[in-house]
């Protein structure tokens, strides 16, 4: 594995008294896609929250390209280069598409080809057509594209995506999948949380499985494909 883009080591996180993440550790290689899988309630979204700073870990460490970002504020973590596509899209409904993209703009020294409004619109031609429309009036698929585009405007060094295919029609899921594949081809490091196993396995290089807040598997995507036992035991699927 090349340099580590994101290292999560020994992270414990609690919601009040309930211990949600137990010693979670994994590493995302630079330019790779890591799928974070698990049943509902396994701790996937909590894991995202711990990385982006919404739920500071009680102990353990998160490093971005070797630089510790644990317990920084969410805005500081974002400025260090973590981009986040939240579950359920969460675009700013009262702002136009363009304003949604503009508020997310961050420049980063050392970005080879920075994301601009123009480049984002090339990736999502539908957004180009709807730049001056209120984001609340977009379809679910378009809102998802906007949420991804918004995260890209921050020129993230690592992109976290929390269930980007959730609640979308199959055709749109395929489109989101193609987009993620293009980002990967462009060298973007991505952590992908997905319930859609096929989509996740098609895109990922590495897989981390969580079950009741613990890492129960970490390895290559081929291993998961071949192991029915893994899938049934931890994901409940065949």
């Amino acid at each position, binding site marked *: 594995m090349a340099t580590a883009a994101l290292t999560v080591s020994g992270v414990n996180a609690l919601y009040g008294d309930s211990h949600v993440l137990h010693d979670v550790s994994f590493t995302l290689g630079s330019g790779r896609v890591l799928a974070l899988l698990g049943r509902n309630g396994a701790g996937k979204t909590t894991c995202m929250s711990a990385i*982006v700073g919404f739920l500071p870990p009680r102990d353990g460490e998160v490093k971005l390209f070797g630089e510790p970002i644990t317990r920084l504020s969410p805005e500081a973590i*974002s400025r260090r280069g973590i981009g*986040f596509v939240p579950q359920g899209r969460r675009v700013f409904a009262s*702002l136009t598409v363009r*304003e949604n993209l*503009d508020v997310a703009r961050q420049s980063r020294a050392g970005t080879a080809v920075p994301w601009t409004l123009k480049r984002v619109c090339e990736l999502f031609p539908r957004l180009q057509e709807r730049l001056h429309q209120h984001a609340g009036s977009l379809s679910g698929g378009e809102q998802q594209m906007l949420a991804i585009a918004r995260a890209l405007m921050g020129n993230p060094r690592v992109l976290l995506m929390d269930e980007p295919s959730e609640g979308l029609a199959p055709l749109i899921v395929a489109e989101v999948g193609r987009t993620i594949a293009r980002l990967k081809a462009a060298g973007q490091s991505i952590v992908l949380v997905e319930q859609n196993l096929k989509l996740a396995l098609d895109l990922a290089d590495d897989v981390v499985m969580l079950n009741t807040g613990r890492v129960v598997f970490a390895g290559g995507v081929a291993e998961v494909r071949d192991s029915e036992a893994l899938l049934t035991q931890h994901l409940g699927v065949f």
Partner: protein
Amino acid sequence: MRKLAWLLLIVALLAWPFAVGEFYVNLVSQIFIAAIFAASLNLLVGYAGLPSLGHASFLGMAAYFSALLTLRLGFDHTLAAPLALAGTVVMAALFGLIALRATGLGFLMLTLALSQVLWGTAYRWVALTEGDNGLRGLTRPHFLGINLDDSTAFYFFALLVMAFSLWMIARLVASPFGAALAGTREQARRMSALGHNVWLIRWITFIYAGFWGGVSGLLFVYYHKYIHPASLSLTSSAEAMLSVIAGGSGTLAGPVVGAAIIVLLKNYVSAYVERWNMLLGFVFVAIVVFMPDGLVPGIKRLWARWGQR
């Protein structure tokens, strides 16, 4: 159509003092002052999603600063006005540090508490403020050599200041900062995940709102040539809040319309109806029941529906 409406409004505003008597000129001057005050509060209530019940602090303190500087220290208005505004801004910055430790109901209570401290001080510190007697013997400034004691001159001065204030507020709302502010209102967490310092955005907005509240306070004290602790009271804050809600929070025209209704009810209707407060209550309830998001958005919707027919 839109341009024509604007033109008619501008002509009406310019012609008003020449068409009616002094009472009505002064009535509309008061609307201008209340409109600036409500519009500044609307930055917090409507655009930042921060309901403040202490906005009278800024109106009242700018007014008291100006009154004390001119009356006690003999400062000229050209010096007293910027000093009063600077004092108000410093106070807004400090109040923001305290009040913005919370949002929602907590923010509301903190702003209320802070303004009550000022109100109480103005009431009790008789040596400085004359307490319940208020400060009398104040003067209006001269603007570009024109004596603002004349009601028509004051009308145009207030109109000018209001137009400038509303324009400055509209500019902020339409700027990238305004978009970020709307983002913090809708989804504060999301904004921080996008790298924005939500607290700082709110603090800057709080200070900006305080500044324009202070501007309305200066006009207020110039107009009345008198200042009383009531200007710092909860009633004063609540009236502005009612204006914003009745007119339509988060719209530019809403607070102006709301302020006009409240000033009219207070000054005009009260001459005919003894229990004008009750009438204000009824009007407010009717607005909230029939147009929950305020008069301006409500009428816009009716207009659109009518246009479709």
